């Protein structure tokens, strides 16, 4: 099924907006994670984790899901397809990976934020978890940068399935 030009542009606009918004939100999240880990002021660290909890729940998770859904719509509704080109497939796998890891690692942020509401955070409180949050945010940023690069450059290369489909279309529509 191929979408009309107007619908295709709308879907693409929604996908780019969600994906770039997700990237920007992760950059902000990483800045807060570093501030929360390195700040010597308890209030700053506590405020950082409370802000991170809100960002992950109300910005990052909705945008990641929106990016995934709009990406599926954009690929399935155009000639690119979902499994025909390697760059589309790579983007899909990376988005699923990033969304899954994100869902898995929302709990540690919630734990640190909960502790921050109960009392002043010291630099040793849940240190391992706070380091892990910085590493996760860095890894997520790397994945999203790779995704953006793939989306812009669209490197050549068809999958065997895509090649077969293209060949079938040539046979049926000479």
């Amino acid at each position, binding site marked *: 099924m191929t979408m009309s030009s107007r619908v295709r542009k709308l879907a693409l606009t929604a996908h780019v907006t969600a994906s770039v918004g997700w990237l920007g939100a992760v950059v902000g999240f990483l800045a807060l994670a570093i501030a929360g880990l390195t700040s010597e002021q308890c209030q700053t660290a506590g405020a950082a984790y409370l802000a991170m909890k809100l960002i992950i729940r109300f910005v990052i998770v909705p945008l990641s899901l929106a990016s995934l859904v709009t990406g599926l719509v954009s690929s399935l509704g155009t000639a690119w397809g979902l499994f025909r080109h*390697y760059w589309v497939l*790579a983007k899909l796998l990376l988005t699923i990976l990033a969304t899954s890891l994100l869902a*898995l*690692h929302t*709990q*540690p942020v919630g*734990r640190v934020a*909960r502790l921050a509401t109960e009392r002043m955070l*010291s630099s*040793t*409180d*849940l*240190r*391992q*978890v706070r380091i*892990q949050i910085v*590493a*996760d945010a860095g*890894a997520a940023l790397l994945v999203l940068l790779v995704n953006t690069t793939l989306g812009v450059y669209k*490197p*050549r*290369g068809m999958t*065997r399935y895509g*090649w*077969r489909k293209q*060949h079938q279309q040539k046979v049926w529509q000479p």
Partner: protein
Amino acid sequence: MADLERYPGTPRWVKVFGIFALVLLLLFVVLHLTGRGLGDHRRPGEYAPSGDGPRSPERGH
């Protein structure tokens, strides 16, 4: 003509990308299994109030 219709194979960038992803995945799994990984999936009660280790007798010294 038949040669033009033959599948040209997987591009080099896909192979490099795949190897890189596989190495990162293996590293992640190994770090996870050895307990030094990025993931920390203990339940809230298992966290010590200060510091980050679980409450176990061995860590008391």
